[in-house]
């Protein structure tokens, strides 16, 4: 069966958030920030913007009726910055106006006082200063320390992996309107409608049964709208509740790229030991995850790095450790693979290093160590219905 959306997609008939027929009286919202990654916030000068024709309101942290908090796993991320800025692009508030263009012009009129603080962008530097999102995690199987002596070859090295922008074609956006009795309908370009509903409930201080989140489809998500679609939806819901008018926000590409988190960059150290017949006997790795300024989904991403640290290989002695490091970057988030790709990249790099040092193809080592039924993953699950060797053999 062909994709049921195929014809509507190619003929432009599919409805995305920005295609929803607008309700009468719709207002437009735009987030504003300050060009600094770490600072003490001073006064926000809004009078110039507020006096512009078409500007309806500006909302900041002090306008929030419930909790100024959108953190999913850990409550460490305000909807609007309060007192301090922790990353370049952190929303301080939103402007609501009768058109998107007026919002943009008004944004230029907002002046914000701040005192810059030291900025950390490197995860190893953050870890050295004990700036961690959550306690370190580690997975262990066998005993690496006693295994090194049994190894014919032992190699160590360092790996760096950069992040990745989701670049969904449809940028972040949401559209809210009031129903009766303080109920709200929010159309949201989100992978997690319930997260949107739950967070609006906390921030607006209304029960979940008064919040209807509706998602027709997304123009791409890739993980970037698992947790990070929420904030924008909360902002329009807040404005709709305050103004009793429909309010819509669709981010400009450059705002989206600046303000949202991405795939986590990682730095890592590895140590790998093999027998003379190229069996990997021991593998040790330490991962430094660049989480950005708040937890977002980083602890879960960190865990998946450990789950997949040995990729498709059986290693009997494994010790992998991971630090989620707090830096002054936008909070990094879910991205297709969710930390798994970074974990795999490091062991592939380790195998490459061994192969280059021994002057043999990496594939000799890879093939020798592929998983098979009955093997155990470092997290205790037993391998069954394994297709690693079948896939390799049919590809060769």
């Amino acid at each position: 069966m062909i994709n049921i959306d195929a014809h509507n997609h190619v003929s432009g008939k599919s409805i995305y958030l920005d295609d929803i027929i607008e309700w009468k009286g719709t207002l437009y919202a735009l987030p504003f920030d300050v060009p600094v990654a770490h600072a003490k916030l001073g006064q926000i000068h809004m009078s110039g913007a507020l006096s512009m024709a078409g500007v309806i309101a500006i909302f900041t942290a002090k306008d929030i009726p419930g909790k100024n908090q959108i953190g999913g796993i850990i409550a460490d991320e305000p909807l609007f910055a309060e007192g301090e800025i922790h990353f370049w692009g952190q929303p301080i508030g939103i402007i609501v106006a009768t058109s998107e263009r007026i919002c943009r012009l008004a944004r230029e009129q907002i002046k914000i006082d701040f005192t810059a603080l030291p900025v950390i962008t490197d995860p190893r530097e953050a870890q050295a200063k004990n700036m961690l999102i959550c306690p370190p995690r580690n997975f262990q199987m066998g005993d690496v320390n006693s295994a090194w002596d049994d190894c014919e070859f032992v190699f160590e090295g360092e790996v760096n992996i950069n992040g990745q922008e989701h670049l969904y074609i449809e940028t972040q956006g949401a559209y809210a309107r009031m129903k009766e009795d303080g109920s709200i309908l929010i159309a949201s370009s989100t992978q997690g409608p319930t997260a949107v509903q739950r967070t609006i409930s906390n921030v607006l201080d209304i029960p979940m049964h008064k919040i209807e989140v509706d998602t027709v489809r997304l123009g791409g998500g890739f993980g970037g709208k698992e947790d990070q679609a929420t904030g924008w939806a909360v902002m329009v819901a807040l404005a709709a509740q305050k103004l009793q008018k429909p309010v819509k926000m669709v981010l400009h590409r450059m705002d989206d790229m600046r303000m949202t988190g991405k795939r986590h960059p990682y730095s890592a150290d590895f140590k790998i030991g093999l027998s003379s017949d190229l069996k990997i006997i021991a593998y040790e790795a330490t991962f430094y995850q660049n989480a950005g300024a708040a937890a977002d989904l980083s602890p879960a991403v960190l865990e998946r790095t450990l789950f997949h640290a040995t990729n498709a290989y059986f290693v009997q002695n494994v010790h992998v450790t991971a630090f989620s490091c707090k830096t002054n970057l936008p909070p990094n988030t879910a991205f297709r693979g969710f930390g798994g790709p970074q974990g795999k990249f490091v062991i592939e790099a380790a195998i490459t290093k061994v192969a280059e040092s021994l002057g043999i193809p990496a594939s000799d080592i890879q093939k020798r160590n592929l998983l098979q039924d009955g093997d155990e993953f470092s997290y205790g699950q037993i391998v069954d219905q394994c297709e690693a060797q079948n896939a390799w053999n049919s590809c060769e």
Partner: protein
Amino acid sequence: MFNEQNAHFKKGVAVQPICFGISFTNTMMNHARALVHIYQDGSVVVSTGAVEMGQGVNTKMLQVVVQKFGVGAENVRIESTNTLRIANTSPTAASAGADLNGKALEMACVSLWERLENVAAEHFSISNLKIQNGMLFDGFQNSGNNWLDLIQKAFQLRVNLSEHAHYATPMIHFDKVIGKGHPFAYHVYGTAILEVTVDCLRGTYHFDKVQIVHDLGKSMNTHIDNGQIEGAVVQGIGWMTLEEIIYNKEGKLITNALSTYKIPDIYSVPSEINIKHLESQGHEMAIQKSKAVGEPPLMYGLGAYFAIRNAVRAFNPDAEFEIDAPYTPEKVLMDLYKGR
């Protein structure tokens, strides 16, 4: 051979096996719900917790219903994901959207089917109900009645034509404190071979061929699954090659637009991507034994880094190189002439 004959172009090859666990590693998130209404005109509307984001989950949901009821696709509509219709959803993520929501949908359809079987037995004397192209069969015998007759009779008899079902992945568990358990419903496997040619004067490169053998189990939709594999491998290659995020020391994003952040375009995707489906039995915990496909194939792209590195080493065999992804053409050029 190519590398011996060409001074300024070098080919590199890497093999990239993958193994990826399917399930949210936070066990409590592995459940989903589905709501099915059959209206009195025989049309069917479906809501699940799955969010359509281009991955084709709605098409797979529709297939579940069509295959269970034996009616044409035009009879079934997949509605938006809505918190009033489907409560307490997990995000559509972890490659698990089709599995979790599809299993819930299957359960809802089975309950409705059982009621319809009773109606068919009592009022159309059909003891072994099968529906094909909307016609009711008793085994292989066409009864002459159709889906609409069955639904209208059920409605007259005040049979409930709506069903809401809940599915929670069985078996899985994980103890975070000791880091042991059985967190994944199953694993997805595969292997890719990536071939690249590096222009050793410019540092640019092009992927000539990516050959993939991927374990889909029993794919319920090969068009959609191949699309997911192609998209994922290209996204993975992009991450390892062209896509470079740069923040300056002050924490400002420098690559803040499409002019400075490059994703693969039609010119930079591999000339050839061959996908072969591994003949495997599939897994009971995958929807219709069709294994999850969203994330795993992205990791074939990791091989792009190592393929380029092998080509660079063919040109400059004696230097020591860092491992620092992505391997942009700038970094490739520096490595090609490192120590020379």
